[in-house]
């Protein structure tokens, strides 16, 4: 099971950088509903490897606009975006239509959507426009991963086939290749080891951890929790033994920093 970190609103860039430094696979970015791509872009510039799971709330704008935001973010991050699509205040039918159009706008096919909530193109009188549009730029990834959350996420997932973020271990579907999950740490090492192990046993594949102060907590998570769920019967002695002494330097033959490390 892979472990990621939930960032706090306004702290995404620094916390994503800390998560990457300590080997977390990704960060869950969930600022105010309308500003996910803005926060995601800030985190993208401070990292080069970590995945950016960005909460995208349906209903705050046209699904094509949400797709454009995600595609631009996927280009800024060179293909590291996962969209955590939140059904927000939409009912199942509305969420289904918005997600359908969002997905269509993220593919390399032209878009033509005639639904109850949206018509793309709208075919409005007086417009000299074609019968379909090409939403550009395309995401870098072959297929931008979609995870679901929100009030009608479970029903939507059943209809659309996308994985649903599990909030409790029994909600995990161990037959899925990807089963994302979210949990809050207590800060007590033993109970947190038990917590992540329970999620691993339940079949979660990507567990996003919430803590009070991610930058302070991430070294503890990297040393004690990520290894704990990286193999059966993890030999804890390798985590609990002394930390090797750091190299005193000075560095005379410095290698170039990675692109994401600068700025």
């Amino acid at each position, binding site marked *: 099971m892979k472990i990621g970190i939930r960032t706090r609103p306004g702290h995404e860039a620094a916390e994503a950088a800390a998560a990457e430094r300590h080997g977390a696979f990704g960060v869950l970015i969930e600022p105010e509903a309308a500003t996910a791509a803005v926060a995601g872009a800030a985190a993208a510039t401070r990292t080069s490897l970590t995945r950016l799971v960005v909460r995208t709330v349906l209903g705050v704008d046209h699904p094509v606009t949400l797709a454009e935001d995600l595609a631009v973010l996927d280009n800024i991050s060179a293909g590291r975006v996962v969209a955590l699509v939140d059904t927000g205040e939409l009912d199942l039918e509305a969420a289904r239509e918005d997600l359908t159009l969002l997905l269509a706008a993220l593919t390399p096919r032209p878009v033509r959507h005639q639904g109850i909530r949206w018509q793309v193109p709208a075919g*409005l009188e007086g417009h000299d*426009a074609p019968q379909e*549009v090409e939403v550009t730029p395309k995401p870098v990834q072959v297929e931008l991963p979609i995870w679901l959350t929100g009030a009608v996420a479970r029903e939507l997932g059943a209809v659309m086939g996308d994985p649903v973020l599990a909030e409790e271990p029994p909600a995990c579907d161990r037959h899925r290749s990807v089963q994302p999950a979210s949990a809050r740490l207590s800060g007590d090492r033993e109970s947190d080891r038990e917590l992540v192990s329970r999620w691993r046993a339940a079949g979660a594949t990507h567990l996003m951890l919430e803590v009070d102060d991610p930058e302070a907590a991430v070294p503890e998570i990297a040393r004690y929790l990520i290894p704990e769920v990286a193999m059966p019967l993890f030999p804890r002695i390798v985590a609990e033994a002394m930390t090797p002494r750091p190299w005193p330097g000075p560095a005379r033959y410095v290698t170039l920093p990675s692109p994401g490390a600068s700025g």
Partner: protein
Amino acid sequence: MRFGAGLWCLQSTATMPRHPATAYRELLEDARLLDRLGYDSLWLSEHHFFYDGYCPSLPTAAAAALEVTENLHVATGMLLAPMRSPEKLAAETAALHERSGGRFELGVALGYRDVEFDGKGVPRQERVQRRKDALHAVHDAAPEVPVWLGSALPEAVERAGRHAHGVLYSGANPLSLVRDLSDAHRRGYESSDGSRPRPRIAALRNVWVTEDEREREAVLDWFRASYVLYAGLGWSVPQRGETAAMDFRAELDKALDDAVGTAIIGPAEQVIEGLHEVAEAGVDDVVFRVVVEGAPQAAIHEVLHRLAEEVMPALRDVEAT
């Protein structure tokens, strides 16, 4: 005089193909360079549904450029206000303002391409009202963020002055039109209650510092190619009063000649002299239009260095007249 550079459109075009993510990587590299060289602003541009990936999400691109810089302002020139929900734009503007320590500036335009209105389900006739709604929402959420409007119509520019909004002119405008527009903007501001400081007038200008005749020829090609792009997008300037029409669809060659005719290409002294004339046409801030079709990043960095080192110091204290 303040100095910016633009327009970053994040394209991968038929004549200058590149990986789409390269455009965004270079944006960050360019932003860091502008910041280091002491430029005041970087300007982004928006379109939708165009084959070359022309950036459709300026708040996202601006967030990235702001995150990698310390003093540089990042502005939208222009964000197409009717294409985004007013509440979302207001929340994004406030977030960019707070995250950057007040370095985000919002330029908004109406848009002109039918395919963009139709793709977003926005009736063209609602575009003015939608921009008004967007500006109200932005003003409520982030009143400190400078707002810029763009137009080549004196009455629209006068209205912008009355509402204490800055204006950014197209680089294709001849200086005679720039003068008329600037007069209109000042008239508008003088008819306001004056409770806010006079908003600034900025102009994109096609500028390049070089002594090399081969480079000059290449730059002329680049400016020309950059306006062929507008022909592809269907942009035109209507004939108004004494201002001749610039129709990239009907009269491509004439429009290209007119647009490229505004360029100042030459040694630093010639560029300085040309920019004095721009200030005399009422312009407070110049946005160097150097990110143009055909110009490789190395050439853009070269000219950004030369402008910062040889041109900007001579004009810092120049004021618009």
